[in-house]
Structures are given as structure tokens and as C-alpha cells.
């Protein structure tokens, strides 16, 4: 399927959703921003930003530039970002940086305040308001930050009251949450559910307007609500088991529609959304910033010595930053952490807690911490930057100057003097400091205050004070994060640039005259090279070097495994040394194993994984598996397309090896295994050839004369001496291609060397666990690739069915690791590490681990959940017997065994709890299947081991 590049106004999404020229919030937050963010991670070229399309339809893309324009338009028109932010967005060239900056603007300006102050904490804010404490910034007749919040609050509580009392919403909520659906009391749960729906009305309404069919709408809403609860309501995860199926989604849509209709009586949904945005925007102006908070904390405890006051104030501020790595915390948790850091006893901590809360500082402290937790999540921090956060230093102020502290200072002071000069000239004053001007402005009569100046100068003063309060040690610490940031920025830009070049090349190549002949020549050569062997041996004549390389890989396979096996049994100290490194070793070996213990395979695996991540990520968001599957495979192949185009298949092979080595070089062990071997490969294969080619005139003459340069890179030294004269005729044909091929090789080597340099440089600045986090988290989206392409198994009757192949892989991997059957004991043991290092998606492994741990042995439900996760899903599966009625999101239930197709989940409702497994083939009175816990406790039965009675099959769950 070719890339279908469309303009947004021509897209199916645009037509289906009756948009008026601009994107909606749903599209931006779920597709465009993440799509742009991915640009920095794609090893090869980008296909543009994918849009959601109907099931079975061609995937549509819009250009990166159009995606950026749509986001910018939305921010300007709907969210009213100020001119400075507009300018800064327009200046940004890197897609990743644009997405990051826009995301921050969204989180600070456009997102639901409930994300920063959850429903429970809104009550805190109400209490704060009741204390009549003045707003941190000034109020004027036209601008009062507290009013913005009050307006939103009024609307919110009005809708909430309706949801909690009117007949229609109450009935729908009762249908969604029937009695006994949760551990929490029913009434409380229903109220919490209503609050979630009301707070996120706009998002749900947008999701309900996505797609052309009810099925897709239900699916989008189910998924959206699932994400909302998972991301923002950690206390309500009980609800995750309830939301998601088709019926519930339909009722959520009805509930949303009912509430939206109700709002129309006094305000529109857009007004409600705007009020929410305004409330969110005004919160930082309403509450205290770091600097002000510090001063207030010092004042709150007059009985302490000055030194202790400063110590406490510093500790609180630092904790708001440091604790952000734990996610959003409440005030009590933050002060408890402060008490622990300062080694205070419980009574003193409690006293401090009460004293600060009585002065109304609790809400500001909590808000600052919550805001950091959200904001930091938007950045792609390096390991050192996270280190800064953990030690209580906010690195965001310094990122733009790539942690050159002096530059940050310079730009802050420059901004300060510009703002002061503008103010002085406008007001005909002669203030020497910005703070004085700010104070003077605030003291003016309310109707004369320049709100814009007050807000800007307050922010700038806050930043400057923050900077000035840093100790020299902290500044030095910030400086040390510079290298990592520069490399990361550079790498991001490089990947993006590389993507553009590759895309450009492919488009250009399509237009080359005579390309067919060129391809034919390359292919013919490959064919000849594969067939001709050295007489009496199986060694391919023109593939001696790759043949040797394969032997070398085999040796590595044997020696690596032997090394690990020896170490684990022989050396007592191994455990101490290996345990901390285990995740790193596993991570690297995973690719090595994925590639059948060859560097070549590992590279393809990694490259595919990178592509898979991007494509499958989009697929997960869109929820349309068939489209994604096809696009995914296309994209996976595209990784090597570029190399094939510039140098034929021969070059593609070594090229992909290089790409993988690059990609996996982020860890020390990865470097040793992959890059190390690449060096050897290049040295032995390439360098000798080039050296000889340039130094040895006779050799050069021979190579050129014979036209063997196409494979010369590999066949290296041997060619000249052994086969003189045999291919003289062929030389005439291939000789003409020599110049082209050699230059392609050199170009490829330059690219390889360049990418390699960047990645190995980055090694010094990023520590292992950070990269592991990044890479391991890729897995949820790439299961399809892992399952279908890289696993050796999967031939069990479903050669083209990824779900069957995945099931076969699970059985194979668990068996090979010695943990089939899988139970609570062995998911904690060392053999589980073997599974973790396997090709199976981490999300699928997590499902298996969860099921086996929770129920002592792996459940049939856990097994199908793992298959679902590995193939890009994230649906919740309930007890087998109830699956026909509580249908997982993204599935539909079709009754009768006759409706089952290979890859569906069959359901048997007989017995106490029924059974579920993967349907593979119909055998008449029996079916072929794959399942868990059906052939013994925790036993996974692959395609050749599992049969079930057709007469007992109630029907099948089919992926929508």
C-alpha cells in the first residue's frame, strides 16, 4: 500500500467529523502531537503523520508541516496563546522540540485543571478561597485570576449536580455501574464516576464524534475513558474493569450527550472548555510561585532561627521538584517527604504541616508539585537531567541554552532589561530594577494596572530569583548535564534530517530513468552471487566474506551463551556482578536472540522494532488493526529500502547491520556485542578491501577490470588472486557500474560512520537505566512485529495470522525458558528473566506475569490478554464465562462456532467459569486452538497441542 498523502481538508477524518477547517482537541492530543514527537525516534524515514481512518481503508497521512500548522492554529484560535509563545513555536525547526513545546503549552494552558488539581483537591482550592487570601498577582476590574477559577468551578458544579440528581444520567450511571461492581460503596463510586465524566466532558464528546460508525465511536470513547482514568485518576482504577466494553461505551456516549444537552441551557460546551482553559491558565497567577512561596514559608515560622527557616523553605521547594518523579502527590505526602529529608520527628513535621496549611500555603505547594509532575513528563529528559530533578533542581529553565548556565543568565538578564526599558519608556519612569517597577505597578489604582506587565515581570522575577538562589555546586551540576542535552538535541535533529533525506531520496528515485534496468542488474548479480559456489564446497563464491561473517556470528552465539552459562554456575561473584547488569544484558541479548544470534538479524530486529513502534503506536491510537497491520509491514520493509536503492541488496545487508549496531549501542554491553562486532566486520571486510584497493595498483586494476566491485566490499582480498581471467567477460558488463557502486559504498560508509559516532557519543552521557526505560517501553506497540516476524515459531496452521503466531511464540518461549507451565513461583524466578529477554512484547509478558501471580497459575484469560497486548491491543478481559456479555473494548462477540475465524478468541461458557482460548481451525466436532490452564495448571498449549469440543463453543470474540 502506498503512502496516501492528503491535505487535511481532503482526509476521511475531516469529512467524517464535520470539522470546520481546523483540528479538534482529540486529534491534536492523540495523534498530531505524539506523531510529531515520534519524528526524533524513527531511525529511517517518516511517512508523515498518520490520521485515524475507518477499518480497512487506506492509511492517510498529512505532512509534518500541515500537522504543525493545525496545532498552531488551534493554540492561537481556541486557546489564545500569547504572541511570545506563538513566536517561540514558529521559530522551532525540530519536530520533536515543537511537539514538546506545544505539549507544554497544552498542559499549562489547555488541559483540564483537574489533571493538576484533581476533583478532591478542588475542594482544597475552595477552602483556600474561603480563607479570602489575596491572589498572588494583582486583581483589576478586568482581570482577576480567582474569578476565572470561580467561573469554571460554577459550571463544573452545576453539571455535576445535574449528573448526580437528574433521572436520565442517574439511570445511565446505574446501568454502567450495577450493584456489586466494585469494592468501593456503590453510591461513592457512582459519584466519583460522575465527577470524572463531568470533568472530562469535552474530551469524551470529542471522542464520541470521531469515526463514521457506531462501533468506532464506541471504541474511541471506551478507549478515551480508559486512558483518562488510568492517567489522571489513580484512585479509581477499579473503574478500569468496568469501562471499555461496547455497551458501557454506548451508555457513556448517551451520558455525555445528556450532560452536553444540559449545559446548553446556560452555557455551551465550548464555553465550558474555554472556562476550564482560563481557570488552568490563571492558576499559576492566582497561586504562589517558588520565590513567593519561599518567602512565605520563612515568614510562617517566626520561632525558628533564620538559618532553619531558610533550610525548611529550601527543603519544601526542592521537594516540590524532586518528588515530581513520583507523579502527582498531595500536600500531606509532600510535607512528610520534607520531614524525612530533614530528619524531623513526627510531631515537628505535623506542626509544620498545620502551620503552613493555616497560612493557605498548602494549595500552592501541592499545585507546584503537581504542575512539575505533569510538565516534566512532557520533556525527553536525559539521565543527568532526571538526576537534577531528583536532587531538587528544575532543569527546564536551562534546556534552551543546553545547560550553559552563563547563557541562561545572560538571556534572563537581557529579557529583564528589555522588559524594564519598555516599561520605563512607556510609563516615563526610571526604575533600575524590574522588581521595583513590578511593585510600583501593583500599587497603582486597580483600573490603571498593566496586567500583562505584572504577569510577565512576575514570571521573569521568579525565574531570575530561582536562578540566583542556586548554589555554585548546583550550577556546576547543571553544567554537567550539557553534553547529554546537546547530543540528545543533535541526535533528534539528525534523525529528523535523516528521515527527510531518505523520504526525498525515495521520491526522487521513483523518477529516475532506467531504474528498472538498474534494479534488474542488482538483482541478477545477487542471484548469481548466491548460486555460484567454490567447486566441491558449499561456500558461495562471491559471498566468502559474509559466509565467514556468519561463521563468526555462530561462534559468537556459542561463546556468548557459554560465557553466560559458565558465569552463572562457576563464579560465586557472578550474581553480584551480573544482577545489576541483568536488565542491560537481557536487553541487548534480546535483540541478539531476536536476530537468531546474528548481528545482521539483531539489526533488522531493532530497525523493525523502531519502525514498529511508530506505526503500531499510531495503530493503537486509531484502534484499527487491519490498516495498521498492513502499514506496519510496509514500514518495516522500508527500513532497508533506502539502502537497497543506493547499493543493491548486498549493501543493504551490511547497512542494516550498521543500523542495528547504532541503535543498540546505547548500553555498554550493547556496544561490546554489537558495535564491537561491527568494528571487526568492517575492519576485516571493508578496510582491507579499501586499503588494498587504493594501495595495490594491480589489485585495483583487477577489480575494476572484472567489475567485481559490487561484491568486492565483501569478497575483499581473495578475488584478485584466485579467479583471474574467469570473469573477464563479465567485467565488461559490471565494470561500468563500478564507479556508481563504489561511490554508493563510500556514501553508505559515511552515513554509517556518522550515525555511529553520534550514538556512541551519546553513550557517555546517558546511563543505562534511562535508555532501558525508553527502549523497553516501546514494546506495547510492536508486539505484532515481534509475534509475526521475529519469532521462529508460529507455523501452527496460521502462517499469515499474527495472533496465531503470537500464541505459538508464547508457548515456545515459555517452554524454552523452562517455565511452561507458568505459575506464581516461576514468574519471580531467574527463568522469568529468560522470558523477559525474549522476543515477546513486554506488555504481553506483563499480562502473563500478572495473571500467574494473581491466580497462582497462568489463566486462560491472562493468555488471551497477552496475545491481545502483543498484537497492539490493551483490552480488559473478564472471567471467561462472562466474555459474551462483558465484551472487551475493540471486540465484538459472534455467537456459534460457525462464526469463528482463525485468530478469534473462542469462548466456552460451560462449567463454573467457562474457558477462553485462541481459535485456530475447525475440525468438525473438535477445533484446533491455543490456550492456557486448559491442559493442566498454568500450561500453555500451542497450536499443535490444544483441541476443544466444537459443541461447547458459545461463539468467538472478533477484533473489530
Amino acid at each position, binding site marked *: 500500500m502506498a503512502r496516501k498523502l492528503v491535505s487535511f481538508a481532503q482526509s476521511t477524518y475531516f469529512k467524517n467529523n464535520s470539522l470546520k477547517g481546523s483540528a479538534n482537541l482529540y486529534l491534536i492530543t492523540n495523534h498530531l502531537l505524539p506523531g510529531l514527537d515520534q519524528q526524533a525516534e524513527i531511525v529511517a524515514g517518516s511517512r508523515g503523520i498518520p490520521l485515524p481512518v475507518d477499518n480497512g481503508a487506506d492509511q492517510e497521512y498529512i505532512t509534518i508541516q500541515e500537522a504543525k500548522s493545525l496545532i498552531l492554529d488551534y493554540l492561537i484560535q481556541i486557546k489564545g496563546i500569547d504572541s511570545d509563545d506563538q513566536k517561540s513555536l514558529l521559530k522551532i525547526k525540530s519536530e520533536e522540540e515543537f511537539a514538546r513545546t506545544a505539549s507544554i503549552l497544552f498542559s499549562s494552558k489547555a488541559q483540564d485543571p483537574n489533571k493538576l488539581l484533581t476533583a478532591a483537591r478542588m475542594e482544597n482550592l475552595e477552602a483556600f478561597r474561603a480563607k479570602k487570601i489575596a491572589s498572588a498577582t494583582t486583581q483589576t476590574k478586568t482581570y482577576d485570576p480567582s474569578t476565572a477559577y470561580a467561573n469554571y468551578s460554577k459550571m463544573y458544579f452545576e453539571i455535576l449536580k445535574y449528573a448526580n440528581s437528574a433521572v436520565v444520567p442517574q439511570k445511565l450511571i446505574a446501568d454502567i455501574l450495577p450493584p456489586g461492581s466494585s469494592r468501593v460503596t456503590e453510591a461513592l463510586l457512582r459519584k466519583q464516576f460522575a465527577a470524572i465524566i463531568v470533568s472530562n466532558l469535552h474530551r469524551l464528546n470529542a471522542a464520541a464524534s470521531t469515526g463514521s460508525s457506531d462501533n468506532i465511536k464506541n471504541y474511541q470513547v471506551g478507549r478515551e475513558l480508559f486512558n483518562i482514568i488510568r492517567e489522571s485518576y489513580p484512585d479509581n482504577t477499579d473503574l478500569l474493569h468496568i469501562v471499555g466494553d461496547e455497551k458501557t461505551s454506548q451508555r457513556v456516549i448517551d451520558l455525555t450527550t445528556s450532560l452536553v444537552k444540559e449545559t446548553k441551557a446556560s452555557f455551551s460546551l465550548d464555553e465550558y472548555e474555554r472556562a476550564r482553559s482560563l481557570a488552568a491558565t490563571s492558576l499559576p497567577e492566582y497561586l504562589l510561585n517558588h520565590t513567593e512561596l519561599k518567602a512565605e514559608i520563612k515568614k510562617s515560622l517566626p520561632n525558628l532561627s533564620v538559618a532553619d527557616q531558610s533550610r525548611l523553605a529550601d527543603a519544601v521547594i526542592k521537594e516540590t521538584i524532586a518528588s515530581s518523579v513520583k507523579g502527582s502527590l498531595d500536600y500531606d505526602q509532600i510535607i512528610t517527604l520534607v520531614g524525612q529529608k530533614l530528619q524531623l520527628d513526627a510531631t515537628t513535621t505535623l506542626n509544620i504541616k498545620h502551620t503552613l496549611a493555616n497560612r493557605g500555603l498548602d494549595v500552592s505547594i501541592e499545585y507546584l508539585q503537581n504542575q512539575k509532575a505533569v510538565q516534566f513528563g512532557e520533556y525527553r529528559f536525559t539521565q543527568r537531567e532526571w538526576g537534577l530533578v531528583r536532587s531538587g533542581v528544575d532543569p527546564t529553565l536551562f534546556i534552551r541554552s543546553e545547560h550553559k548556565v552563563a547563557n541562561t543568565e545572560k538571556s534572563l538578564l537581557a529579557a529583564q532589561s528589555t522588559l524594564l526599558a519598555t516599561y520605563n519608556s512607556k510609563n516615563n519612569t526610571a526604575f533600575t530594577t524590574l522588581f521595583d517597577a513590578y511593585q510600583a505597578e501593583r500599587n497603582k489604582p486597580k483600573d490603571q494596572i498593566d496586567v500583562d506587565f505584572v504577569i510577565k515581570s512576575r514570571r521573569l522575577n521568579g525565574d531570575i530569583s530561582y536562578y540566583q538562589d542556586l548554589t555554585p555546586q548546583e550550577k556546576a551540576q547543571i553544567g554537567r548535564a550539557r553534553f547529554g542535552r546537546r547530543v540528545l538535541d543533535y541526535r533528534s535533529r539528525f534523525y529528523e534530517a535523516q528521515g527527510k533525506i531518505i523520504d526525498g531520496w525515495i521520491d526522487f528515485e521513483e523518477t529516475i530513468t532506467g531504474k528498472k534496468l538498474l534494479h534488474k542488474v542488482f538483482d541478477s548479480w545477487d542471484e548469481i552471487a548466491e548460486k555460484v559456489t567454490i567447486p566441491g564446497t558449499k561456500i558461495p563464491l562471491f559471498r566468502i566474506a559474509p559466509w565467514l561473517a556468519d561463521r563468526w556470528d555462530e561462534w559468537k552465539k556459542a561463546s556468548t551463551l557459554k560465557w553466560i552459562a559458565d558465569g552463572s554456575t562457576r563464579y560465586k561473584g557472578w550474581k553480584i556482578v551480573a544482577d545489576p547488569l541483568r536488565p542491560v544484558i537481557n536487553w541487548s541479548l534480546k535483540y541478539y536472540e531476536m536476530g537468531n544470534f546474528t548481528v545482521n538479524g539483531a539489526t533488522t530486529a531493532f530497525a523493525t522494532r523502531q519502525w514498529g513502534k511508530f506505526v503500531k503506536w499510531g495503530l493503537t491510537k486509531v484502534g484499527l488493526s487491519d490498516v495498521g497491520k498492513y502499514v506496519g509491514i510496509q514500514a518495516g520493509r522500508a527500513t532497508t529500502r533506502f539502502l537497497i536503492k543506493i547499493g543493491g541488496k548486498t549493501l543493504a545487508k551490511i547497512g542494516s547491520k550498521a543500523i542495528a549496531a547504532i541503535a543498540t549501542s546505547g548500553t555498554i554491553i550493547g556496544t561490546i556485542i554489537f558495535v564491537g562486532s561491527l568494528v571487526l566486520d568492517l575492519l576485516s571486510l571493508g578496510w582491507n578491501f579499501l586499503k588494498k584497493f587504493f594501495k595495490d595498483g594491480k589489485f585495483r586494476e583487477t577489480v575494476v577490470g572484472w567489475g567485481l566491485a559490487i561484491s568486492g566490499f565483501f569478497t575483499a582480498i581473495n578475488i584478485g588472486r584466485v579467479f583471474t581471467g574467469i570473469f573477464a567477460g563479465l567485467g565488461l558488463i559490471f565494470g561500468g557500474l563500478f564507479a556508481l557502486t563504489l561511490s554508493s559504498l563510500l556514501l553508505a560508509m559515511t552515513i554509517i560512520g556518522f550515525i555511529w559516532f553520534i550514538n556512541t557519543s551519546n553513550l557517555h552521557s546517558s546511563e543505562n537505566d534511562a535508555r532501558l526505560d525508553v527502549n523497553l517501553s516501546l514494546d506495547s506497540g510492536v508486539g505484532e512485529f515481534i509475534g509475526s516476524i521475529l519469532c521462529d515459531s508460529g507455523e501452527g496452521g496460521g502462517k499469515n495470522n499474527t495472533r496465531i503466531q503470537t500464541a505459538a511464540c508464547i508457548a515456545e518461549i515459555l517452554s524454552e525458558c523452562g517455565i511452561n507451565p507458568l505459575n506464581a513461583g516461576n514468574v519471580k524466578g531467574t527463568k522469568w528473566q529468560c522470558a523477559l529477554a525474549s522476543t515477546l512484547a513486554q506488555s504481553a509478558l506483563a499480562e502473563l506475569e500478572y*495473571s500467574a501471580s494473581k491466580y497462582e497459575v497462568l*489463566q486462560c484469560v491472562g493468555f488471551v490478554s497477552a496475545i491481545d497486548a502483543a498484537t497492539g491491543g490493551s483490552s480488559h478481559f473478564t*472471567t471467561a464465562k462472562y466474555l459474551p456479555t462483558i465484551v472487551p473494548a475493540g471486540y465484538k462477540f459472534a455467537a456459534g462456532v460457525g462464526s469463528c475465524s482463525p485468530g478469534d478468541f473462542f469462548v466456552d461458557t460451560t462449567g*463454573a467459569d467457562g474457558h477462553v482460548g485462541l481459535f485456530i481451525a*475447525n*475440525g468438525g466436532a473438535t477445533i484446533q486452538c491455543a490456550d492456557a490452564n*486448559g491442559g493442566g*495448571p498454568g500450561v500453555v498449549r500451542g497450536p499443535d497441542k490444544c*483441541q476443544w469440543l466444537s459443541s461447547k463453543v458459545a461463539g468467538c470474540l472478533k477484533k473489530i
Partner: protein
Amino acid sequence: MLKILSHRITIVLLAVLALITLLFSIFYRPKPATPKLLEVSPKDRSEINYFDEIRLRLDKAINQDGLVVNSIPEEEWEILVKPNSSLIVKSKKYLQVNTQYLLNITYQNSPIASLTYTVKPQQSDPRYAQEVAEEIKRDYPLAAKIPYEAPGFTVLYKSPMTFEITLKEGVEERSEIINAVRDWVKENGQDPDSHTYTFSN
């Protein structure tokens, strides 16, 4: 005379006594004391898995004979006497999940233990799955090889021990095909006569 008689009587009496003692020692077996339960795993009144076995340790060695295990709900229990006065009690079938079992273990009609266990819930019914597996093994022994696709025909199970052969278009040689299927059954370790062969078309 009396003296002589008295002497003889004494001898006879002693002989009778000796005989009685001998007979008593031969035939009398004192009733053994009831063995006491020292330890049980999993503990009484705990949750167990549907496949768990129960291990008991007694204060003295006992014979398998005379050991009886009853339960509510009823199950067929296997008892294995191990050295060190240990016993293993296991249900022949998987236990019913989410069910409370009361076990009474007696030895020569004397109670040894009365135990209560609750079987942990699962997300499926393993006992039922076990029954399905047994039924398939018994009635559809070649289910793992089905559907059997040959160039001219396909074989499915129609009912227990009965194959249904579907011929592809243009294929008519029914008797040869039955022979081919019978050979295939034999190749897979089954007696060809154990199955019935029917055609769907």
C-alpha cells in the same frame, strides 16, 4: 494318692495355662492406638489451589489399608503412604474452584483429621477443562491431526470415533480414499477399525 493326683492336676493345669497363653499370644492382637496428626500442609482452614495435594504427618507409621478419606462435596481421593509416617491425599480430578471442602480422614474407623479448605477462584473452570480433555482423548483420539487436508479430500471429526470425509470436486475414488484415511489413522498409532468413515458429499 492325693499327693500324686494333686501333682498331676497341677501339671495339667499348668499345661492348659501354657496352652491358653500360647493361643492368646498367637491370636490376640491388641487394638492399636489411633495415630495422631502432627502436621498438615496446607494448613487447615486455608485457601488451596484446585490442583494442590494435602500432606499429613502422623506420630506413627500406618498401613494404607484402613485409611479412608471422605469429603463434602464428594470427590474420589487418592492416598499415598510415604515413609516417615507421612501421607499424601489428592483428588483424582481437579477440585471445584471457589468451593469449600470438608475432609474427614479416618484410620480403621477412628478419625485422624477433619480439615476444611477453600479452593481459590480462577478465571475459568479447570475441572471442566479436564473433563473436556478426557472426552477428546477418549472420543476423538486424532483431534490433534484434524482437519486432515489431503490433495483430494479433507477429513474432519463428525462425532465420537467417526470421521467425515469431504471430497474435492472431481474426486470420486471413495474406496481408495477410505483406505488412504485408514492408512493415515494407522500411521498415527490408532487401530483403523476403531473409527467409522463417512462422506459428506
